[in-house]
């Protein structure tokens, strides 16, 4: 599927926002991702969708961080360029089929670094469904904070945590969650693996459910190569197909207690 770059601009020194115009109808849920073909690279790159308007001539926005040669080259793609993307990949965050999720009145969105973007589309979806989400967003330092204003503009409670304390609460997100006054109801989370582990343990201790979005190196992104399979309580799951979102119960970090 062909997309036209509408915008590709830095939010921080290393994080960029790219908006693409094209057929976005395959996107059904927040937390789904796209596989973007970058000129000069063999494999596609997976990126979560920050937000989108679903239409044949729709729009979708990615927020990405430069971590290697591909994402560095991506920052140099000019507006107007055409990129090929596979869209609507993965299960995404589920807000209706999972009873606990559907019942949660005040789910907590916990994001770390470039795990934050997909929670924005999710937040909008939850608000539309009449839920009252809150967000805890964690970063290393003040310079890396992204999307705070976007969440605040949605009128929800936003807590920012930085590891060095240069903005918001000092410490890791999981620590920040412990300081919240409101009781934990249900969790949606995306971020680096140590963060996911900490949140998973926290949910275990508090006895609340949640959905966790994972990353894995991908060959295809649509279920063909078995490159991304991770072991879960219910057997091997392809992160690109049965994931990237797994529910608390199926994750093999058994820490409920």
């Amino acid at each position, binding site marked *: 599927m062909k997309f036209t770059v509408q915008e590709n601009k830095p939010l921080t020194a290393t994080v960029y926002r790219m908006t693409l115009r094209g057929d976005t109808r395959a996107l059904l849920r927040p937390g789904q991702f796209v596989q973007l073909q970058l000129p000069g690279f063999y*494999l596609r790159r997976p990126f979560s969708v920050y937000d989108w308007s679903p239409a044949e001539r729709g729009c979708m926005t990615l927020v990405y961080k430069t971590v290697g040669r591909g994402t560095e080259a991506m920052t140099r793609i000019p507006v107007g360029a055409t990129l090929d993307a596979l869209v609507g990949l993965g299960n995404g965050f589920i807000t209706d089929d999972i009873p606990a999720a559907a019942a949660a009145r005040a789910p907590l969105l916990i994001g770390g670094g470039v795990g934050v973007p997909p929670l924005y589309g999710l937040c909008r979806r939850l608000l539309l469904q009449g839920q009252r989400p809150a967000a805890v967003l964690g970063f290393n330092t003040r310079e890396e904070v992204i999307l705070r204003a976007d969440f605040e503009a949605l009128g929800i409670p936003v807590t920012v945590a930085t590891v060095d304390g240069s903005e918001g609460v000092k410490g890791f997100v999981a620590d920040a969650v412990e300081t919240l006054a409101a009781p934990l109801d249900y969790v949606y989370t995306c971020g680096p693996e140590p963060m996911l582990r900490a949140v998973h343990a926290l949910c275990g201790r508090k006895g609340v459910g949640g959905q966790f979005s994972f990353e894995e*190196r991908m*060959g*295809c992104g*649509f279920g063909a190569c078995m*490159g*991304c*399979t991770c072991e879960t309580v219910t057997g091997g799951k392809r992160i690109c*197909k049965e994931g990237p979102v797994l529910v608390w119960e199926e994750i093999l970090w058994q820490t409920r207690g």
Partner: protein
Amino acid sequence: MADTRVTLSGITLDNPVIPASGTFGFGQEFQDYYDINVLGTFSFKGTTREPRLGNPTPRIAETACGMLNAVGLQNPGVEHVISHELAELATFFHKPVMANVNGFSIEEYAYVAQRLARQPQVGWLEVNVSCPNVHGGGMAFGLAPESAAAVTRAVRAVTDKPLYIKLSPNVTDIVSIARACEDAGADGLCLINTLLGMRIDLRTRKPLLANRTGGLSGPAVFPVALRMVYQVSQAVRVPVIGMGGVASACDVVEMMLAGATAVQVGAQNLVNPCACREIIEDLPRVMERYNIQTLRDITGGAWK
């Protein structure tokens, strides 16, 4: 009209384009992108006796014009493949399929081959003696003429279905291994499987793949594959299915000129799920450009 048909051991394919094992699952995921009945056939995911989860992740790394994989034969085991995957496949794919047979012992190869050969959907057995990503089996059998022949003989003994042996490129003399398989009763040969390769993460200073090494495939390996197909196809009398880096209709023609009777497409399916459909659509145009009326006639056209 361009005639794209080719024949593999008595079964005629509409065209020589065959998705390679491990890059096409059991067809399902591609059915979302196009009607896979346009394919010549396809080779399904490598199957073993028992279910296998495969290697730990990361299992994939990128390379220049290619990729490494160390999936390690993840599959639900032959019984589940028969009862679920093949049953499901029958609902949307209506051609004989190629069964990719794997094992960790000669007995396992024979067992899996026998079980799969009995399925009416299975047109050909493709016995993989060249998987570089598992220990104590896989590639080990494909590294010497004797062991490759032993697997061939054992599988030959349990089935009359067309038997293709899939060879490893990680050898000094692929021709001697191909000949040994032919002499042991193979009806054809498939080459190449992946080249053993590696990448290291500069940040962690560790191999990128959890399995340390993986199999290299994609356009990067095309010239090596082409050379091996050229050598082997001239040295044996049975058909050769060529693969390794095929990504376009031109590549298909080049492989066939080198000596391939049919051509498999692997990694390209992963970066472009519509690759095989596009190649099949392009073939008549490319045939016209190079004055080819009957595609099967060009097999071995570059032999001297």
